[in-house]
């Protein structure tokens, strides 16, 4: 069973994501801010992380950079899910190694399809 981490500071979004992941049979971890996310990533080594960018302490870019630069986490996929929808934001996210970048509001179907593709 794949381990997926959901990191976002908006409880309602987390709730919807959690529902979707469980329904698709993933093992779900939840982080409400950047430092919680870091902790879980290092401890539980999820196969995929759904990352918000704007969070109160550590931002999503930093977390992604951490994952992509760590050998132990080489299998971990990163999907950005952010309200930052500008061309330049998306480009930056992909440049630092994200596997996908979806903007809020998102289509639940597209997100789930992306995740299952990445985890094949």
């Amino acid at each position, binding site marked *: 069973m794949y381990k997926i981490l959901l990191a976002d*500071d*908006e409880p*309602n*979004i987390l*709730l*919807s*994501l959690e*529902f*979707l992941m469980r*329904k698709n049979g993933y093992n779900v971890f939840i982080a409400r801010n950047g430092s919680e996310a870091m902790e879980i990533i290092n401890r539980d080594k999820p196969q995929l992380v759904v990352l918000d*960018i*704007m*969070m*109160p*302490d550590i*931002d*999503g*870019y930093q977390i992604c950079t951490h994952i992509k630069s760590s050998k132990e986490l080489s299998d971990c996929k990163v999907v950005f899910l952010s*309200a*930052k*929808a500008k061309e330049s934001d998306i480009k930056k996210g992909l440049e630092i190694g994200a596997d996908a970048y979806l903007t*809020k*509001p*998102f*289509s*639940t*179907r597209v997100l789930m399809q992306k995740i299952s593709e990445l985890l094949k």
Partner: protein
Amino acid sequence: MNPLILSIVFVAYLLLLFFIAFKAEGWKWKGRKVTSLPLVYALSVSVFCTAWTFYGSLGSASTGSLNFLAVYLGPTIMAPLGFLLLKKLVRVCKLQQITSLADLISSRYGKNISLGSIVTICCFIGIVPYLSLQLKAISESFRILGGYSFDYKGVDTIALVISFILIGFTVLFGSRKTLTSEQHSGLLAAVAFESVVKLFVFLLAGLIISYLAWNSLSAGLNTDGIISGFASFFKEKESIPFNFGDWFWVALISGFASILLPRMFQINVVENDSEHNLTHSVWVFPLYLLLINIFVLPIAYAGYLFLGNNTITDYTLLLLPLKYNLPWLAVFVFIGGISAATSMVIVETIALSTMFSNSLVIPFLARQANSNSKISSIGNITLFIRKFGVFFTILSAYLYYEFVSHYTSLISIGLISFVSVAQFAPAVFGGLYWKSGNKFGALSGILVGFVVWFFTLIVPSLAQNDILSRDIIDYGLFHLVWLKPNSLFGLDGWGSIAHASFWSLLFNFGCYIIVSVWTNQTEEEKAQAELFVDIFKYSEVYESSVVYKGVAYIPDVKALLANFVGDVRANNLINAFSKRHKIENDISAKADPRMVAFVERTLSGIVGSASSRLMVATVVKEEEVSVQELMGVLKESQNLIALNNELKRKTFELNNTKSVLEETNRKLIQLDELKDDFLTTVTHELRTPITSIRAFSEILYDNPDMELEDRQHYTNIITRETERITRLIAQVLDLEKYESGRQKLHLTRFDLYDIVINVIEGMQQLVAEKQVNINVAEFSYVVVADEDKITQVLINLISNAVKFVPQNTGEITIDSTLDKGLIKLVVSDNGKGIDPQFHELIFDKFYQAENQTIRKPKGSGLGLAICKKIMQLHGGDISLRSILGEGSEFTIVFPIKREN
């Protein structure tokens, strides 16, 4: 007292003076050269006070007369007026490199040689007796202390030795260098030091003597007795009744003398390196005069009481310490007397020797020098002439002292000298302010004034000593009654000084004006008159605008200068000048007119203006330049400067406009960026609830078999997120109203306490759910404000607090105070606190700007930004103090009564 000790003291004092004069140029005080400190300069002006002041005032006061005070009153009254005069004199002399009184007069009246020579000769006649007075003072004070008799036979060897020591000293310091400006800054420091010494000694002796005299008097008398005795001393002894005429004339000529005495001119003008110095001397000098006269009357009275009548009253100050058996004080007084005498002799002699060489000897030689080799020989002997001038001056003073002066009191000689230099007043002051004054007027005025001076002051003393027939005094010259030297044209009732001053100055001024009006000026005189009188108008352009119509070659000009300053120095000076004015400086080139003028000025500083003009004429084939041409050039230069200033002003204005525009542009760009930031923030804020709404809508659609409970929960979320969007839109619109200034306050009177209670009641349910404890302090302030808006702020602050305190243990405290008309209301909680990095940001509507990836704590939205706007609209403010993990404290402040 042992004469050997006295001699040692004398020599030691002079050595100290040597030391100061030699070393002072290197001394610094607070980063400035000691010799250019304004105070040093101001003190050196007190060279006005000679041995005549130091000893002679007492001599005069001891005879019961207060007339000596007029001598100090004059310069004091003159000081403010003298300030303006001297400012002009200094400016003129610096620009034209004038280094003596004779040179000044000669230069003003067309660089006339005979005028300079006559002024020099008159100065000698007038000043030499005054110099001898100083020798007399030193010699006699030495005799008194050393216990010598005054009735010596033959030559006064003491005075002779002193004369030679002074010649040596003056030659060393006064004629070391010939180069321009004639300043001797080390000497200036030495003179300032002497001024301090004489004042200090006089005050010290005055204090001690007054104290001792008072003590011995109060043994027999009470205070009133002493004071009435003191008063009656002056009443009884007043031999000549108070006479306004005497006071007026003595004060007037003393005032003139404080500017026109050669030594005063030397210090005030020649040694003065900045006009700014005058603003200090204008008050230091009168203050000095006041201090040095303060103890004259008490000491004179003490002298009268304790020395008896048969004594040399001039030396009361020296005799009293001996009487009281205070030999050390007597030695101090002796040193004070020396300092007063030597400073005068040295400065006066330097001034006179400059005149002697530059206005008498060198012009005479220069008139015959028609080739460079002859001028070169003058250059070689200039220093020698200067030194000879020193020797000649002091020796003349000695000879006068030895053969003429024994019968006169110190004070009378001094005043006679004053009257003699006052004869230059019409020529000098007139020359500075009246363009039509010319050389014939000046010449006739000075000559007539001197003749009258000689006749009214010198002839009587010659007759009294039987050198001339006494008939002149009794029956008048040629037995004409109206030509009696003491009552010319029947004028009686004034003292001899007032009498002589009146007649000599009357004739002098009369001749100066009448002859000047009757005769014509030469072109050169006209030019100089223009430059002197309007110096402040021209000084800016002076250096670059002097005209010569003539041809000269640079090597000739350079060689001329080199005769006096040496080849190296001449080269340097010419190179520096041509660089400064961007003039061609080629060996084969013709000399620029400005350079010729520069050389002439430089030479003026060395040999005087008249000789300099003669010498320059030998290398320039010159044509006469009319005053119109000269003025034309000066005016043109002035116009250029004005034009230049106008251009500078315009450029400055343009630059100002440019920077204002740049600033405006910058602000506009900033505003634009802020607008962008705001849009980003708002859209971001909108995306979040929409995201939830979409996600849950899709979930509900895709999962029709969901449990009812979950379904209700998710639809409820959708509803609340929709409300959130509505609220946000309302806030944006609200904020926009504040921004645009359309939001108005609706003022009413209400009690702040009631509002707080209402707000809390409105949140009852929320509070109960979270089990928060809210403490509201007891207060009651009736305020005038917008009730709805203040309520809005309170709802925001209190609901935030409720939101962030922990479940069950939450504590919120609300308190309010009034201070100086300002209401302060604090809402504090024990919530999780706010990171310091957000303390400013939290009140900012643009909290999620372009490059920002860290998010403000959730839930604050635009609420606090609106709170801030509301408080600002009330003339108040909102602020935050918070420690992470311990709690937050929001404070609002606003005036208790908001005026509309």
